[in-house]
C-alpha cells in the first residue's frame, strides 16, 4: 500500500473490554464482605480477621487449610497471611455506600455493619442459589475464627 494512502486514511481504535475474574466483581465482592461481617460476633470484625476469612473464601485450598488449623490438625505457622488489594478496595466501596463503618476492635481497626446493610443482607440470605459455596465457608469459619484466633495466626507468622 502506498505511503500516501496510508496517511490519507484515518485509523480508529476501539477499546475492547477485558474479562474480569468473578472475585474482582463489585457485585460479588461487596456481598462477601457483608456476609463475613454478618456471621461474625456482633456483626463486626477486625481487618485482620476479614483478611484471614477472605483468603479462605477465595480459594478452596485456603478454606481447607484454615479449616485444618481451626481444627488443630495443622499448626498455625502454615497460615500465609495475604493482603489482597482488591479486598481493601471492596471494603472502601462498601464503606462509601454506607453498608459498613469503621470501628476499633480488640485487634486494631475493623468494620461493623450498619443498619443500611439490613435489606441487602436479608436478600442475600434469601437467595439460596447464589454464593452457595462461599456462604458455606463463611458460615463454617466466621464463628470459629475469633479475634483472638486471628491474632494468634498473625503472631505465629511473624518472625520472632
Amino acid at each position, binding site marked *: 500500500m502506498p505511503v500516501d494512502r496510508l496517511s490519507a486514511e484515518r485509523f480508529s481504535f476501539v477499546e475492547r473490554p477485558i474479562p474480569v475474574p468473578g472475585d474482582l466483581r463489585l457485585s460479588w465482592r461487596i456481598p462477601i464482605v457483608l456476609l463475613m461481617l454478618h456471621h461474625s460476633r456482633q456483626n463486626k470484625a477486625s481487618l485482620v480477621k476479614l483478611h484471614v476469612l477472605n483468603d479462605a473464601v477465595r480459594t478452596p485450598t485456603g478454606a481447607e487449610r484454615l479449616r485444618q488449623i481451626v481444627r488443630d490438625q495443622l499448626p498455625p505457622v502454615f497460615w500465609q497471611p495475604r493482603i489482597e488489594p482488591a479486598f481493601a478496595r471492596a471494603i472502601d*466501596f462498601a464503606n462509601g455506600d454506607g453498608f459498613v463503618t469503621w470501628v476499633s476492635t480488640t485487634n486494631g481497626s475493623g468494620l461493623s455493619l450498619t443498619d443500611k446493610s439490613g435489606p441487602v443482607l436479608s436478600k442475600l440470605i434469601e437467595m439460596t442459589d447464589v454464593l452457595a459455596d462461599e456462604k458455606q465457608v463463611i458460615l463454617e469459619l466466621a464463628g470459629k475464627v475469633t479475634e483472638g484466633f486471628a491474632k494468634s495466626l498473625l503472631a505465629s507468622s511473624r518472625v520472632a
Partner: protein
Amino acid sequence: MLQLRHLKLRALTAQSEFGCDLSFDKPVNVVRAGNTSGKSTCLQAVNYALGLERAFGPRTGIPMTFAMQERIQRLKDGPYERVLQSYVELEVENVTGALLTVRRDITGGTETKLIQTWPTGRLTGVGPPADQRDFFVHDAGAAQHEDGFHTYLANFIGFDLPRVTRYDGGESPLYLEALFPMFFVEQKRGWSALQGPFPTHLQIQDVPRRVMEFILDLDIGKTRRELAEVRIQLRDSLSSWTVRRDDLLATTRNGCRISGVPVKPTPEFVHDPRAPIDYFLDGQWVSIEAALQALTERQLALREAPPPSSQTAASAIEVELAELRHSLDELSVRQEDIRDRERAQKQQMSAIETRLSDLKTDLERNKDALKLKELGSILGHAASDHQCPTCHQSVDAELMPLASGTGMAIDKNVEFIRSQIVMYEASAGSIARQLAELQLLAAALQQQSVEMRARVRALRQALMQPADSPSIAALEAALVAQSKIADLNASQERVDEVISELIDIAREYVRLDALSRDLARAGISPTDRSKIDYLVKTIREQLVLYGYKSFLPTEITLAEDNLRPIAEVRDEGEIVQREIGLNDSASDGTRLKWAYYLSMLALARHAPINHFQLNIFDEPGQQEVEWESMVQFLKWIAENVKDRQQVIVTTSETKQRIESALAGFDANIINFEGFILQPK
C-alpha cells in the same frame, strides 16, 4: 381445604377458669377487640393447635402469650393469677364436610409435642362420638410418617405434598409449615414481606418458588419434578452403561483394542451397534478377522511342515534369536517413547483440568455477580451503578487495581468464560482419547514383549536339546498360534454378549435423553399462563379499589421465577422490572399484600388449586393504611368470599366502623370489650 369452625382456649388458675370460645360459622369473620386484649393470642392458638407455629420461626418454645402460660388478669390493672394449666382446642372442617377436633396442651398438661385428635365435631357437638387418636409434631418424621400429625393434617386438607430438594442435597416433603405463611399473615413479621415470609430453618431450597408452584398447582412444578425423576433414571442408565463398557474393555486387554463403543450411549450406536476388535499382531493393529486368518495360516503352515530336527534347526534358531534380540531392543525403545508421550499427555491433561476447574469457579462467581447485580440499588451505588459512592467517578474496572481498560459487562463475561470452558473441555476430551489409545498401545507392546521373551526362552532351550530330537521351537510356535486363536475367539464371543446388553441400555438411555430434553424445553403451559393472568388481573382490580399509588396498578405483575409481585415500568422506552420494596411506601405494601393474597383465594374459586380456601389476616390495618382502603378491603372480602371459603380478620378498629363497613353483608363480627380471655 380447611375451614375453622370453633376455637376454644382455656387457662386454669387456682381460683378460676379463664377462657374464650370463638365460633367462625360464616365465610367472613372479623374479630374486634382493643389493643393487647388477646386477638393475637387467639390466632397464635390456631397455629399452635395445628402444630404450625414453626411456620413463623425456628423457636422451639411455646409461642403463646404470657397470659396462656404464666399469669393472667381479669381487668387491666387488676391482680394477676397464676396459670396452672392451659390448653387450646380447635374444630376444623374439610372439603368433604368431615370434621376434626384437635387439642394441644400449653402448660401443666401432657407433653406439648402431643396433639390429641377426634374425627368429629367435639366443640360444636356435631357428629357421632369418635375415638381419640394421638399424634406427635416436630419430631423427625412428623410430616412423613404415618403417625406424624402433619401427614394426617395434609391428608385431611386433601394435599398431596410434593418432595422437594433440601440444602444438604437430600429430599423432604414440602412441609405444611412452608405453605402456611401464604394463608396466615401474622402480625409481627407477616406484613414485612409481600410473600410469606417463609421459614428458612426447614432447609428447603428455593422455598418461595416451590410453595407457589404447589399452591397454584402449576404444570411447571410437575414438569420439573418429572424432569428430576427422568434425570435420575438417566444417571442410573449411564452408570450401568459405564460399568458394562468398562467390563467390555477389560475383557480385551490381551493385545486387543475395541473401538466404536462411545463413552455415553448415542442414537448412532442404537441404530448401528458395531464394536470392531483390532489385534496387535507383529507390531501393528489389524482387524480381528485378519489376525485370525493370519494366525490360522501360520498354524497350518507349521502343522504341514514336519518339525525339523534340532540339529537342522539349530542354525535357523541362531538367526531367529539374533533377530528377536534386535526386535526386543527396538521394542523397548518404542515402549520408552510411548511412556514419554503418555507422561507428556498426562501433564497437559492435569494443566487443562486445573484451568477448567478455575474457569468453572470463575463462571460461578460471575454468574453470582450477575444475579446479585439484579438486586439493583439495595446493593449500593458501586456495584449497581458502577459509580464510586464517594467521588461519583466510574468504576467500570470493577476491583482490578492495575487495569487500564474497562471491565467486560458481566453477561458478556459469563458468555466468554463459557466459550473458554467449551474449548478446554474439547481439548481435554481429545487428550483423554489420545491417552486411552496410547495406553492400549503400551499394553499391546507389553504383551508383545512378554511373548517375545517367552520365544527367546524357548529358542534357547531348543539349542540345548539332543541333536536328533524334533525341534521344540517349531512345536512351541504352533502351540502359541493355537492358543492365540482360542483367545481371540473367546474375546469375540464375550464382546458379542456384552454388546447385546449395551444395545438395550443405549436404547433406554436415548429414549430418556430425548424425554428430558423435551421436558427441559417445556415452558409455561397455557393452563399455568391462564392462572397467572387471572391472578394479575384480580390484583390490579383490587389495587384500584384500595387506592394503591406507588405504581400504576397496570404496572404490577408477577415475577416469572417465584410469582412474587413486581412492577414493570417504562424507563426511557425500555420496559424494566422493579422489585417492590416495602420501605418506599409501607401502607402500599400492605395494600398489595391484601390484593396478592386475596387474588389467590379468588383463583381458588375458579380453578382446582392447592389452597387452604382460608386466609387469616392479623391486624391488616398495618402501617396506618387509610380507613377508606380498609373499608374497601373488608367489602371485597364480604362480596367475594363465600360458600366453602373463609377469611378471618382481627382488628382493633371501633365496633361502629366495622359494622358500618360491613353493613348489608352477612359477616360474623365477634366483638370483645376488654380482655378476650375472661373467667367462665
